[in-house]
């Protein structure tokens, strides 16, 4: 079995992107429900979720092991397993969404997504050039 550096070498970045993606969807839910009475703001803690995904705990490792047809297409589904619902900061309508907080979080989360994508981009280009340079050598 040929072990290539990209078999496992990208795992951290991939899972980081999965979590960032999940956080963006969480923000979308909160923004959509900013004025829904009784809605509790959702939070997806980045570090805790990433650690759990990397260690395979709390997830069903659906991407590889589950026979379900949907598993391959939505391995991110288990990211939301780590969502917590915020109770503090409720207004008169018992809603705990804070628009400014969500906007700030979205800015940071987006930047991190773009940055990690950039890292992966660099890796792929590096490996590609390493293989290409081998040609004719």
């Amino acid at each position, binding site marked *: 079995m040929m072990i290539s550096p990209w078999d496992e070498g990208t795992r951290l970045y991939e899972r980081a*992107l999965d979590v960032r*993606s999940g956080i*963006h*969807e*969480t*923000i*979308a*839910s909160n*923004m*959509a*429900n*900013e*004025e*829904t*009475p009784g*809605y509790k703001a*959702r939070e997806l803690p980045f570090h805790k979720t990433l650690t759990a995904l990397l260690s395979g705990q709390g997830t*069903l490792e659906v991407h590889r092991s589950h026979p*379900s047809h*949907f*598993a391959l*297409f*939505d391995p*991110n*589904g*288990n990211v*939301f*397993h780590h*969502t917590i619902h915020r109770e503090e900061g409720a207004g008169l309508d018992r809603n705990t969404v804070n*628009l400014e907080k969500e*906007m700030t979080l*979205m800015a940071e989360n*987006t930047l991190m*997504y*773009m940055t990690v*994508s*950039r890292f*992966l*981009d660099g890796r*792929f*280009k590096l490996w*590609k050039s390493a293989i290409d340079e081998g040609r004719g050598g």
Partner: protein
Amino acid sequence: MNLDRVFAVVGSALDSQRQRLNVIAGNLANAESTRSPNGGAYVRRDVVFQTTAPEQPFSFVFASAFGDSSEPAGVKVSDIVQDTRPLRTVYDPDHPDADEKGYLQLPNVNPVEEMVNLISATRAYEANLAVLETGKTMTLRALEMGR
């Protein structure tokens, strides 16, 4: 970045805010209407928001199969209700719709309040749009990996 799911959530938000804007516009347009379809002065209307699972072909089936209820949630207008606050009453005996004592009932619409709501709905609309735009940016970036 799962743009389809982001789009579904944002789409539901934009739709809901648009409905809210329509209701606000109706309130403002009828702020002085003394006649309404069901008789009497116009009664202010308001929207009621409710969390909902947006239209999803696959992932929500997946999530519910595993009992995970923390999947992204959209929003919808579950109801349009009448404002229960009392109507305004003014003394205006010359008005054709005044009662036998000369009192006229006017809608319980406060234009200032409606303008505040209008700004709020517009801001919410734009904020949700920003979520979609950002999602698009991330998707485009992901597509460029390795190119």
